[in-house]
């Protein structure tokens, strides 16, 4: 029997048992659509978080001393960069925009509002210089960035709301200076920052480089230099080589933003893996439904199968007939799922889903602040189509391989 005949027969069989076919195809389609939408949302979350990390927190990467890099999570100011200006000049000459920053941890003590103390991450920067690399100075929602020489601070807006802080309030930072001696920084709140980076809004505080230098006895040193890179891959790779060469010449190391964001990447990687788990669960559910459908189909059609075999149809042909039926179900389910996924993804890409209520209060490591936009990921549609058909074929193969080889007499008598 020809393949075309078997495929036409399989299609007719599916139409004969229309309700069962529709239910199985629908289950598969809904599962695949859910996978496509979840994958789109997670990929969008990852993309937006990465941009927020680069533009508002890390730059494309940082140059630090090797000693600082080894212990960077403790922000070891003792291992700060001694000659940031020389290094930045060299980067400038190579056409790499850079900005010096000093990052340190502190305990913030607030006496206004609800009062109390809480840990903060402080980033010291020169607002004019920092604009060359980062966008954080453009995210002041109320007030202004502190001016050079001013004992002021701009704080994340969410943190300010939580602590009842307003512009003009005083905040004290308990810090340890570069040499390990304790110091207290008395700062006035000059501005509130609301950036697209949730971590900044939640736990960051910004001061000027000279304020940090003064209180932390840095004597011109900074913890790191942030750089930005061009977009084109070739130019980017060329600049990266330049940066690495300059970093080595100054006894420093360059580490890209991914090196500094291992915790975030672990979270994002875990979530992307979970979308794979969801796809797996979808297929498990679909497999059970499909196995049930195929078994029912075989059991109900025992006499028909016996008749066809007695008329000369070979076991292989019969087996292929059922495989084609399963393959068609897989094809229809996958196609339906892709159509549903495409339709659902249009508003997700255009309008997004507002998760502000969740991001405001829960720290999940992601950097986006609220609205997640979906993205178009061609590969997830391709995976869905291939996986949908393959899973249907393999489930049918396992389910039917013994059912279609019973003796003809038994089948006709059944």
């Amino acid at each position, binding site marked *: 029997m020809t393949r075309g005949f078997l495929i036409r027969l399989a299609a007719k069989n599916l139409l004969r048992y229309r309700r069962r076919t529709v239910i199985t195809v629908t289950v598969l389609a809904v599962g695949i659509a859910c996978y496509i939408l979840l994958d789109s949302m997670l990929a969008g979350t990852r993309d937006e978080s990465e941009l927020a990390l680069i533009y508002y927190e890390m730059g494309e990467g940082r140059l630090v001393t090797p000693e600082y890099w080894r*212990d960077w999570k*403790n*922000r*070891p*100011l*003792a291992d700060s960069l001694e000659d940031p200006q020389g290094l930045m000049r060299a980067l400038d000459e190579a056409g790499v925009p850079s900005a010096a920053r000093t990052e*340190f*941890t502190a305990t913030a*003590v607030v*006496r206004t509002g609800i*009062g109390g*103390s809480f840990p903060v991450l402080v980033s010291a920067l020169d607002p004019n210089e920092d604009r060359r690399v980062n966008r954080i100075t453009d995210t002041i929602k109320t007030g202004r960035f502190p001016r050079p020489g001013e004992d002021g601070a701009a704080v994340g807006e969410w943190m300010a709301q939580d602590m009842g802080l307003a512009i003009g309030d005083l905040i*004290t930072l*308990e810090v*340890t*200076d570069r*040499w*390990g*001696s*304790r*110091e*207290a920084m*008395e700062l006035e709140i000059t501005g509130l920052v609301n950036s697209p980076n949730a971590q900044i809004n939640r736990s960051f505080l910004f001061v000027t480089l000279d304020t940090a230098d003064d*209180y932390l*006895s840095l004597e011109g040193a900074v913890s790191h230099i942030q750089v930005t890179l061009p977009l084109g891959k070739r130019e980017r790779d060329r600049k990266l080589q330049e940066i690495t060469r300059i970093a080595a010449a100054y006894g420093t190391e360059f580490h890209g933003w991914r090196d500094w964001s291992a915790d975030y990447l672990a979270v994002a990687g875990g979530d992307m893996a979970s979308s794979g788990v969801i796809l797996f669960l979808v297929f498990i559910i679909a497999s059970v439904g499909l196995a049930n459908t195929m078994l029912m189909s075989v059991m109900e059609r025992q006499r028909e199968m016996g008749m066809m075999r007695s008329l000369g149809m070979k076991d292989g042909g019969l087996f292929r007939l059922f495989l084609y039926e399963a393959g068609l179900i897989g094809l229809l389910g996958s196609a339906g799922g892709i159509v549903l996924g495409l339709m659902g993804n249009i508003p997700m890409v255009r309008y997004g889903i507002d998760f502000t209520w969740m991001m405001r209060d829960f720290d999940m490591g992601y950097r986006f602040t609220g609205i997640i936009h979906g993205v178009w990921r061609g590969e997830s549609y391709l995976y869905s189509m291939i996986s949908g058909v393959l899973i249907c074929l393999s489930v049918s193969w396992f389910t039917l391989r013994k059912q279609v080889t019973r003796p003809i007499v038994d089948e006709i008598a059944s």
Partner: protein
Amino acid sequence: MKKIITLLLFTGLLASAGAITGSEIIEKSDELQSFDTQKSSGSMISHDRFGDITSSFISWSRGDREFLLEFTNAEEAGQKVLRVNDTMYLYDPDAEETIRLSGSALKDTLFGDISYEDVSEGNDTLDTYNAELVGEELKKGKQCYKVELTAKKRNAPYYRQLLWIDKSTFVLVFGEYYSKRDVLLKNIEVLGVKEVGDKFVLSHLILRDLIKGDSHTEMKLDDIELNPVLEDRLFTEEALF
């Protein structure tokens, strides 16, 4: 006139020859509180606007550079803090892992207003500070030497300290700790001292973080054993597990 000046100078020299210096006071105070080994048990009570929290502990120390503290209260049972020279290790039995602390992390809070550095600080004050006797005062009902310590090393935890030391026992009565910008950061008040042999141990004290302002932490030592025999293994990372 010349005779009068000579007499005054001579009297001054005599007085200075008999006077004790700030360094001598600190040296004596450190010596009275230095032991080869020590084992003690006690409790730390943190008082703040949310109420009181109490933790109990056992601690062992050998010289200035080796110290081990193990929490014994139910909530933190088995958590340990080990200092060996300038490195500290934290062990949490629930996480079954050791965290190594160094640098500024030593300033982090161990309990209430007490930092890891506070509990493991050695009695080597004059290595880090210059001491000057700035007066004598009645403090907390005791006649005290008032000694000012100024950091001679940049890594001193506090830039300046004012200490009131009991004239009769050379034991600390009260201390104030200042930053380089002369901000009063912390103070310590000694409420109880135990005499063990010819040594003194601060057995009850209160630490106040004056920046936070609304909290203080009390530390009490109930049982103190001086110069017990301690195994070398006690002060190793392996012993934490």
